[in-house]
């Protein structure tokens, strides 16, 4: 099994979700996160006082899939999240040792 973490633009959440579902993903976990990379932050001004805000809001989507599905899921996510501008995000893929479905106690691929 593979865990696929997708960091994407906030407004791309719906597109990526739809693409992942189309690629056979049956569940996902989504979080609002902040971070910075090459995109850099932005300036905010309150009553004339300027602040540099380094952390940019992003969406992080976690999915775990069977090994055989990982390639097409990553490709679907990449296509859906792509704009071509700096700040499109990243996808991390890592191996997962075990998965347990809490309700039934099933493990491994059956539990994904």
């Amino acid at each position, binding site marked *: 099994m593979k865990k696929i973490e997708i960091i994407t633009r906030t407004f791309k959440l719906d597109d990526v979700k739809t693409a992942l579902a189309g690629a056979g993903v049956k569940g996902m976990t989504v979080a609002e996160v902040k971070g910075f990379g090459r995109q850099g932050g932005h300036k905010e*001004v309150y*009553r*004339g*006082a300027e*602040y540099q805000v380094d952390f940019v809001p992003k969406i992080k989507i976690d999915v775990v899939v069977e090994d055989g599905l990982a390639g097409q899921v990553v490709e679907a996510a990449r296509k859906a999240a792509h704009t071509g501008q700096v700040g499109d995000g990243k996808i991390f893929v890592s191996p997962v040792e075990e998965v347990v479905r809490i309700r039934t106690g099933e493990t491994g691929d059956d539990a994904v």
Partner: protein
Amino acid sequence: MNVADNAFILICAALVMFMTPGLALFYGGLVRSKNVLATIMQSFIMLGLMSVLWAVIGYTLSFGHDIGGIIGGLDFAFLNGVGMDNVGSPAENLPHMTFMIFQCMFAVITPALISGAFAERMKFGGFMVFSALWLILVYAPMCHWVWGGGWMGQMGALDFAGGAVVHMSSGAAALCCAILIGKRKGHGSTAFIPHNLPMTILGAAILWFGWFGFNAGSALAADGLAANAFVTTHMAAAAAALSWIVAEWVHGGKATTLGAASGAVAGLVAITPAAGFITPMWAIVLGLAAGVVCYGGIMLKNRFGYDDALDVVGIHGVGGTFGALATGVLATVGAEGLIAGNAHQVWVQFVSVVATWGFCFAMTFVIFKAVDATIGLRATDEEQDRGMDVSEHSETGYQM
């Protein structure tokens, strides 16, 4: 006694009461989320503390029989002789109680205004004692001088609804407090970003709404003068909201919602002394100027290096002063200013400005030092790090 006037002023008193929770939201949104409750509390609890103090001692010190033009006597202590009829009422058309409770609401909001200067770093216990002393030693004398038969009113200083009594006094106190308490921990290195501007905008809107009671009610009758004050108040706020965002657009590149809200409040502050003395068109001119002047006013703290956290000096101090001087120039309704050929009025206004700043700053200095030495006013660095909500009140504004 006039029943229509009575009905109007009672409603105005309720409107002015609503300004204090409005101010609580205005200030609450501007601080960081860990200080939202402590900041709101410093306004809200004034409804408790100041109201009781006003009934017991504040009202009589302000409106009791004049003693040497300096302070009121103790005739109305514990509201003795303040009844349902107009006996002893400074406004013959109103029940004495109506006049008293209308004035009470002014006494509530004034110390609350100061709290913006020392927001995010003052201990609650010391704050309560400081505010109680401030009402008795600063607000009551100021109120007596201007409206209670004291020397400033006798001199002919024009202050329709509290430019000196409410705004300059709180602005001067704010400057003194900001200097004495010192900067917030992390000032200059940490970003003090407002945590909830929608809350601030709502607060500004409530202030604007309540201000109709404040200014129109200061006519103390349901008459044409009240209508004039209502209209000038609205026009000045509107014009200042516009001119502030234009100023920041030109100066900083963008028009902001916080700028619109701040500008509206600046306009309301500046029109307060003038509301019943100038015409609507001059109110628009005054408002346009006030937005730009107060935008400049908030820059002062960066130049001089004091941490007036929520810009009480820049908006209330500078705006109140500007309004008081502008009243001396623009008065044509029921009084004569410079444009009506009475240059002397400008001088009278100038004297009242200097006296108000001098007295309020000096007396605030004494009160602050006394309370700081005995009870303590500044929260420790650790307490500021945790946030005043947890360290002073054992609660937080927002659960995850």
